């Protein structure tokens, strides 16, 4: 990768020194785009005719794009590609290569959209593969056994078993959309929730709980059985 500097005119007519990448980033070295995303601010490539990146050369656009690097850095991509270079250093070690072909997916997809005229289409298809490139480190990951209490068009009300030993439950409400993957949504059906949290972010995954959730745990009769035969289990109709 050759990096040089180039003078360009900005919006205010001032000269700006900017680094220029003289390779075709999307076609031949697509993985490096992600690795060096923080450095890549300007592009110069052979297919500029088809894809107008000139606008990106303007400093104001670069500034705007910088705001988004936080989101991009959130993905696995930077780390993943950086360390994949290690394999290149020692390609004689087959065991170091990954156990699956995740790494190939990102560059291949970029290749197929290298001539796209619409950057939106490119990004849309890039993040279709987010499952294979995400590697978020969560502070806490919980699998919570739950049961649907009721639902309407907007919300689903769920009993969540937070502590199996203490029988500690919480009733929580979630947007109905989260449950669209549960085809047989109904009252009293089991749901398994996977909740991941870290400062500033959390994620919920919903799974149909059949075979995973023990519904007997939601059937709390213990306390009432103890009260049987005592006055406390009768209505206070004389008051």
């Amino acid at each position, binding site marked *: 990768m050759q990096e040089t500097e180039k003078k360009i005119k900005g919006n205010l007519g001032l000269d700006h020194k900017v680094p220029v990448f003289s390779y075709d980033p999307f076609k031949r070295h697509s993985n490096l785009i992600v690795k060096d995303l923080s450095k890549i601010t300007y592009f110069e490539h052979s297919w500029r005719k088809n894809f107008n990146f000139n606008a990106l050369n303007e400093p104001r656009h670069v500034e705007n794009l910088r705001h988004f690097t936080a989101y991009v850095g959130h993905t*696995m991509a930077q*780390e*993943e*590609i*950086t*360390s*994949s270079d*290690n394999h290149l250093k*020692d390609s004689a*070690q087959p*065991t*170091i290569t*990954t*156990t*699956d072909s*995740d*790494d190939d997916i990102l560059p291949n997809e970029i290749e197929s959209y290298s001539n796209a005229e619409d950057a939106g289409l490119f990004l849309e298809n890039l993040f279709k593969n987010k*499952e*294979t490139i*995400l*590697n978020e*480190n*969560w*502070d*806490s*990951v*919980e*699998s*919570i*056994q739950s049961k649907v209490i009721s639902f309407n068009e907007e919300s689903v009300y769920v009993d969540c078993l*937070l*502590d199996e030993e203490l029988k500690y439950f919480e009733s929580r409400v979630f947007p109905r959309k989260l449950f669209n993957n549960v085809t047989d949504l109904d009252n009293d059906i089991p749901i*398994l929730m*996977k909740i991941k949290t870290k400062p500033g972010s959390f994620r919920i995954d919903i*799974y*149909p709980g*059949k*075979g*995973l959730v023990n519904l007997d745990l939601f059937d709390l009769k213990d306390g009432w059985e103890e009260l049987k035969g005592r006055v406390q289990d009768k209505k206070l109709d004389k008051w």
Partner: protein
Amino acid sequence: MINTAFQFEIRFTKILDFSEISRSLLAPFVKLASDVSVDKQNSTEEMTILKFDEDNYLIMVSWDRLVLRGQGEIKTFVKKKSYVEIPFLKILDRIKSIEGFGNIKSFLFATTYVAKLDTSLDNLPKLFKSKIFNDDLEDISSEFSDYAIVMLEKKESGDLTEIRFGPYLNPTDIMNRTIVPLNINRLGDIEFTGVIFEYKNFLKSNEINLDNFSKEEEKSTKIFSDLCKKLRKK
């Protein structure tokens, strides 16, 4: 301190008809997994592998053992309601409910850590020699550039604890260990020099729960932290 790989393996008496019932046994858990594969199909040693790529772990189930292999944030695995409880120990519960199930025999916890030390690659072996060994090592030979220390405790009952550590020279060291990462690319920055540490504990036990895993994780982390402190002490 980076956990490069860990394995929690529960061994039980062999289930002869495991290959016939494994599919229905594991079916509820497939929806949680990102991929499933079956090895040695329709043989007594059939093994089903449930991959959870996004969460950096996998579960292997065969006729005589249930294995959890992961990497990275091991602390998220030790808590209640973690992946160790669901789905791992849930699968164990289902296996225990099989008619032909005998009993749990033992479990194995193994893990590998690496940590950075503020020393150059050239000085790393010297550091280990001065902190762990003594100068008499030179009398044997002064030509070696790498060391490994192995500590073993073997009991009559069959329980075995093994600790290995030595200089961490480069990422190749990680791949030369007994258990390797599922995806080395997801370990973050491992391009440094420091110390590599392997911990293995094999215990006979009939009961397995989250505590077994949590205690082993705590024990291994403490030993490694103490080791790092010793190596970092000026």
